[in-house]
């Protein structure tokens, strides 16, 4: 009798010990080799932590803006959601994304986040997500093209205009710039705005300061450069620009990276691939910067056990030794966001990174000077989501590129559209 009782008790205890906390991890990196890499890390984590079971579910960027709020409303949201800065304010406002400043501070003391990394997730008195990796636009070109044309890589806007003009010749577009009403265009136009001193979209009181001479200057130079771009650039996203560069149809493009496409589809001569930071407006060298996107993880559960498990998993990903492998799910695209991460040998050991080491170093260097519209110098307001989700920077650009308005009229009208959007 006692034995049976003991047996039952031991079973009950073993069940207790086996009580597993499930964590669902949503991300949008659906390319098969990225999914595989994340799965490897998850498997390692799960076997080291038998009480936690992490599963990944891949979503599409195309529908996530509809799906994530709907899943929160329906109570089917994941515990962890990877996202970009535009998206976090929505989920923070819904009360879905949990404040994580303590956790981030803990990670910061261990690994040292780059200073600008947290700007994109800190507002309303909290930090709303854990930065995972960075991405920043740079200018990509072929060194041999520049040598043949007898010009040196551009530093200022007038250098850039000259280069675009010189490199435009039969069947080659001097510079590939998008004109689509899409995120990519938001990014390219903002990278010009940063470099002319129009980094800030908001005043400190939450009103807009978009309509200013620096912004107009950026739209103006963009319009001028656009004439050297491909005719279907009005419908481009990242992929088309990259293909244009890889096929030598475009001499220069603004892109996060071209490395993997260049390597697999364009011969892959590492010595010939040039990368520089986005040129700045004449006389504004001190403004030199770029647009950067810090991708992050939001924790979306209030359940203490699940939250603990989620933090444990994220800490695991951020740990040097795992971190390099994690962001090298796409080598040469995702950049380290922490000091420790950028020294992680598992990052620099990847064959692709080894081959394109000098380019990756330049990208990383550029990324530390990156900022993002609406998330600058603490002047951040959640209404920025409406501006970025609707791609209003790009829409404003279309007013001048496609509808033919003057840059200053377009910017004025753009600010009206933005004011209406943030009401």
């Amino acid at each position: 009798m006692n034995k049976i009782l003991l047996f039952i008790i031991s079973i009950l205890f073993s069940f207790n010990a086996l009580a597993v906390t499930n964590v669902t991890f949503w991300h949008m990196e659906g390319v098969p080799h990225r999914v595989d890499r994340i799965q490897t890390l998850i498997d390692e984590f799960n076997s080291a932590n038998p009480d936690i079971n992490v599963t990944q579910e891949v979503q599409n960027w195309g529908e996530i803006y509809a799906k994530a709020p709907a899943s929160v409303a329906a109570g089917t949201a994941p515990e962890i959601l990877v996202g970009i800065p535009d998206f976090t304010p929505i989920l923070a406002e819904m009360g879905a994304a949990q404040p994580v400043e303590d956790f981030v501070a803990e990670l910061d003391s261990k690994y040292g986040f780059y200073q600008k990394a947290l700007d994109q997730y800190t507002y309303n008195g909290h930090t709303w997500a854990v930065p995972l990796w960075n991405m920043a636009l740079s200018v990509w070109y072929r060194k041999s093209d520049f040598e043949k044309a007898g010009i040196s890589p551009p530093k200022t806007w007038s250098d850039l205009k000259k280069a675009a003009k010189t490199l435009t010749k039969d069947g080659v577009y001097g510079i590939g710039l998008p004109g689509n009403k899409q995120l990519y265009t938001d990014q390219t136009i903002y990278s010009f705005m940063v470099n002319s001193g129009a980094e800030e979209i908001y005043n400190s009181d939450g009103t807009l300061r978009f309509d200013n001479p620096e912004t107009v200057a950026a739209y103006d130079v963009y319009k001028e450069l656009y004439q050297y771009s491909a005719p279907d650039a009005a419908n481009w996203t990242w992929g088309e620009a990259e293909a244009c560069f890889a096929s030598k149809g475009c001499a220069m493009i603004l892109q996060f990276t071209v490395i993997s496409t260049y390597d697999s589809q364009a011969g892959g001569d590492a010595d010939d691939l040039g990368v520089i930071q986005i040129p700045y407006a004449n006389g504004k060298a001190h403004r030199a910067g770029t647009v950067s996107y810090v991708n992050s993880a939001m924790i979306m559960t209030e359940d203490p056990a699940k939250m603990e498990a989620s933090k444990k998993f994220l800490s695991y990903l951020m740990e040097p030794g795992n971190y390099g492998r994690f962001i090298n799910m796409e080598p040469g695209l995702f950049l380290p966001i922490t000091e420790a991460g950028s020294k992680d040998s598992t990052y620099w050991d990847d064959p692709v990174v080894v081959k394109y080491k000098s380019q990756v170093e330049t990208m990383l260097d550029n990324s530390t000077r990156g900022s993002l519209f609406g998330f600058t110098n603490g002047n951040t307001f959640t209404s920025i989501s409406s501006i970025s989700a609707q791609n209003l920077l790009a829409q404003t650009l279309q007013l001048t590129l496609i509808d033919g308005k003057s840059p200053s009229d377009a910017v004025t009208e753009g600010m009206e559209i933005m004011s209406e959007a943030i009401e």
Partner: protein
Amino acid sequence: MIKETYLKYIFLTLSIIIILIIFFFPFFWIITSSFKSPEEIIATSTTIIPRSFTLEHYEKILFNSDFFTYLINSLIVSFFSMFISIILSVSAAYGLHKLKFYGNKFVEYSLLVTYAFPGVILLIPIYLLFAKIYLLNTYIALIIVNVLFATPFAVWMLKAFFKLIPTEIEEAAYIDGASRIIVIFKIIIPLAAPGIASIAIFCFIISWTEYLFASILISTDSLKTLPVGLSAIVGQYQIDWGFLLSGAVLASLPVILLFLFIGKYFVSGLTEGAVK
């Protein structure tokens, strides 16, 4: 008279050429391109006849992605959507066009007017509704929606076939003491078979190509359908055209195979069955 035949001949040849170029050439080009090397696909000098040949894109998609999982999901969803659509539409078409009842014109038109509610409108309410009854992330969710989109038109497509069945045959059967069920299974269904084959394929295609709802109602990888799976494996920041093209070809292949075997019933069912 001779002049007219001659003119007709020119018109015919011309339209055959136009149809070949517009409706067949794209497939030729896409299929051949999917075997080209990555460099050749994005080259600025476009080729019609490939200069290179590689299977790398197919290898990549078949061995490095969950293609087969997506394929099986799509087959399951499409098959059951088709099956349920057939039962519901044959039953409804029989009621509408063989039995006649008070209000049948109204029902017939109402069914067609269902298409007045755009899918975009139904998307989020359906998501919330399905979440409440635990249908998210299930095949059933997609089947329910696919049936909704396929049946109204399917019922109309059946109309012509049902009208062709002479009432005398049915009446003779009733006089012989056959029950309604026997009449349906022994007379109506066999005689309307070409029509049923057509709507079967129609419903299958509607389910096979559905994207919007499948992308929102399913979040687990293991339950994704082909169109959704295919667009997920394309990265946001890069386009691997070869990968995408071979994926496109592979995603179309199953319906094409299906069509190879039963396509002629679809077309002849549609086009010849209705001869009065």
